[in-house]
């Protein structure tokens, strides 16, 4: 082992993990279980949980995948805030006690595994994809669409959402009203509505501006505070409200969806780019 590797694996301190354990089919109610975990340099909360599973308790359950803040699987309630377990180092929590619970506002499947079905159902309800009025163009797009950099900036930050559910678990309105569409789905509804390539604003408005849509937001801003990707759902909701207000009083700009860019004349493919493989699914 090299000197730096030995330094990296050296135990800096020990912390007490208090992990919420619950098996709905077996336990009467959730309870906190304690583990003492040796902390090494760069060790994340997810690493801590893995250490517990490897050395202390093989029955501990959670959900994780990429370990680098991309997949959004390991959302947990860590020391009083919804966070991703994989991108929060234990030393940065500045505490000798790490309390880990499943995300609030969701049912518990087991231990730290939340049931995210409501999140995905709401996400699906806002039709989170580009909609074109022309069904042919919708199903078999013929080319790229024009879009300026400025038009891209209107929605790009909202496109960074990884569907981790942290915003939903931080939202005080989601906590009290299960019908509320919630910051994640509303942000995605606005992300596509604000996209100039989209023609589905009317379809999406049914959910976005419903009785339990953007107007139930109390603007607490907790969703924006906890987002691990820097998305600002509170802003998306306010922009959606502003757009609706201007539309009600006919003060909005009537924009047209962008069109398909015509093929470029005299276009020659870059020889260095390998040719795409043939489709594996037959087109009917």
């Amino acid at each position, binding site marked *: 082992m090299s000197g730096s590797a030995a330094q990296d694996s050296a135990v800096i301190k020990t912390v007490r993990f208090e992990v919420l354990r619950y098996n709905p089919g077996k336990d009467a109610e959730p309870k906190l279980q304690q583990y003492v975990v040796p902390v090494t340099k760069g060790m994340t909360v997810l690493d801590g949980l893995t250490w517990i599973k490897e050395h202390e308790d093989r029955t501990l359950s959670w959900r994780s995948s990429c370990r680098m803040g991309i997949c959004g699987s390991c959302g947990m309630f860590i020391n009083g805030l919804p966070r991703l377990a994989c991108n929060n180092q234990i030393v940065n929590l500045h505490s000798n006690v790490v309390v880990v619970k499943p995300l609030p506002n969701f049912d518990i499947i087991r231990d730290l595994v939340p049931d995210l079905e409501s999140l995905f159902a709401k996400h699906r309800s806002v039709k989170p994809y580009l909609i074109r009025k022309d069904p042919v163009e919708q199903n078999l797009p013929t080319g790229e669409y024009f879009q300026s950099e400025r038009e891209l900036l209107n929605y790009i930050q909202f496109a960074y959402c990884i569907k981790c559910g942290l915003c939903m678990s931080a939202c005080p*309105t989601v906590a*009290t*009203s*299960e*019908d*509320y569409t919630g910051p994640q789905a509303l942000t995605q509804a606005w992300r596509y509505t604000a996209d100039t390539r989209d023609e589905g604003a009317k379809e999406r*408005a049914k959910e976005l*501006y*419903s*009785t*339990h*849509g953007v*107007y*139930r937001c109390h603007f607490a801003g907790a969703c924006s505070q906890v987002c691990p990707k820097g998305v600002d759902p509170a802003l998306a909701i306010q922009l959606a*409200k502003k757009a*609706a*207000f201007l*539309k*009600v*009083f006919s003060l909005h700009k009537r924009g047209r969806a962008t069109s398909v860019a015509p093929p470029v004349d005299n276009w020659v493919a870059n020889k260095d780019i390998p040719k795409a493989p043939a489709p594996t699914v037959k087109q009917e």
Partner: protein
Amino acid sequence: MRESKLWAWHIVTAAIILVLLGLHMGVMHLGAILHALGIGAGHPTHADEVFRRSQQLFFMVTYILLLGAALFHGLYGLRSMLFELSLSKTAEKLIGGLCAVAGFALFIYGGYVAVAVFRLKGV
């Protein structure tokens, strides 16, 4: 779009209330100060002064406008709070209907009082 219209008017009525409550504060409190300084007619809360104001077209229109704005703003707010209780669609419709009926009835009653007092002018 219906919810958008209701919410947009909720915002507009908030702005109206802000202006009219500013006017109310001016009349009630600035009026009292002016009265104490010997400027202006009577004390703003004296019955004859209240009647004098109510019989002016400007105040009659202002009262009706404030009544309408406050009723709409308040009842929409109440409806929004109740809707967060995860009620059934039927209960939501019932609450919406009750708010609309209550608002309309109170507006008619309050408007009638404002117009009736205005029409006492010269009596």
